[in-house]
């Protein structure tokens, strides 16, 4: 499964400045692992020491916040868009 991953500004040093990259995987966990193979160290910024999503990062598969779905087990269908976004407060 090939997906497009939108990279937030603070992680772009890992992707050579690219705002969007492609990655492979049937679930979010697999996509992040593949992302880390091609852009070493990036997964460690998104996941904590226990391998969970950091609490101030939001990840969307297409339009769905993965915390509403299966978290790291959320399916990532072929052609899906994955967005990694820092959480921000204030309305």
């Amino acid at each position: 499964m090939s997906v497009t991953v939108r990279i937030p500004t603070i992680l772009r040093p890992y992707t050579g400045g690219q705002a969007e990259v492609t990655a492979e995987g049937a679930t979010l966990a697999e996509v992040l692992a593949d992302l880390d193979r091609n852009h070493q160290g990036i997964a460690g910024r998104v996941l904590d020491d226990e391998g969970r999503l950091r609490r101030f990062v939001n990840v969307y598969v297409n339009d769905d916040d993965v915390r509403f779905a299966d978290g790291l087990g959320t399916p990532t269908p072929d052609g899906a868009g994955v967005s990694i976004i820092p959480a921000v407060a204030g309305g």
Partner: protein
Amino acid sequence: MSVLTASEQSPAAVDLGPAAALSCRECGERFPLGPVFACASCFGPLEVAYDLPSGDPEGLRRAIEAGPKNIWRYAPLLPVPADVADKPNINPGFTPLVRADRLAAELGITGELYVKDDSGNPTHSFKDRVVAQAVEAARAFGFTTLSCSSTGNLAGAVGAAAARAGLRSCTFIPHDLEQGKVVMAAIYGGDVVAIEGTYDDVNRFCSELIGDPLGEGWGFVNVNLRPYYAEGSKTLAFEICEQLGWRLPDQLVIPVASGSQLTKIDKGLRELIALGLVEDRPYRIFGAQAEGCAPVSRAFKEGHEVVRPVRPDTIAKSLAIGNPADGPYVLDIARRTGGAVEDVTDEEIVAAIHLLARTEGIFTETAGGVTLGVARKLIGAGALDPSLTTVVVNTGDGLKTLDAVAKTAGPTATIRPHLDSFREAGLA
């Protein structure tokens, strides 16, 4: 990278008064002052670290009391230049702290009860406090467009502040906001973009826009200017204590949307203690949410440290943030201070709006109904001590959410213009 252009200025060129650096609230890593909001190491939120004045609390207190009757009297404690009061800005703050004896009697409160009434700000909500800070940060970093994601009040505050400061504004709101808030956002002449989605969708959109060339050169008050913007809520704490005669209240009840305001009020109280401006003694902070959007309240009651997002469904649209970024900090503060986070139904919100209006002559928006409704519920549950000094924060004006009470507030009678008709109505 293009979006970081402004931050590539030398930190020495940025004059934000006592602000010394940005510090990550999660891991403590420090960064130079700039338009950045998330820690490059752990994604944690960045906040302003200060070189605050020390050693002369009496002198500082006198200087504050001699300052302007707005938030700039606290300029030595805020990320703004020393001459901030001379620049075009909306100059909010120093709103009334209303002694609410009639409300206290209705609620069974025997101690002092106050309403911090922020409906008196220039655009009738507390958002003017935070936006005024963001304007100064935008100036410091050379932005010419001011923007935000908003549940309504913020878009109005940004529009007004940008107009006064001579900046362009382009704000983003959910498509289904109350008409009063939409009009208020648009009247100042800036661009207002309604997005087909919830506030959380709008917030996500803005977070993506900021990393795109489309948003280059834009200061998003609650995204890339957020560390500075959020500090504005500290002024609520400063004013409450000053208006109480440089005294901490025992208990505060504060609405929770993203949780930013509550966490910054706590920060403000701790800074006043550290500076010796108030006596160091315990206070308790209570958070208020609507049942239809109560992710923090639920996490508090279930004993969790993280907040599971929800999809909002409440009349309190200004609090309808289903994924509150500062939620974990609200939990920490409520637990640390011996407070709580509670929620109320839409019916309880409307009843509380009527109660405040009927007893104190203050017409609050739905968020204020949430706060007072929760205060009432906490008293009933024994969580809020009725014998202590309590402050309830009213963050906005009821004229912005007329729909919420339109069915429950109207003419008592409609009569012909004759005395007989009035007599028949039985109102004399």
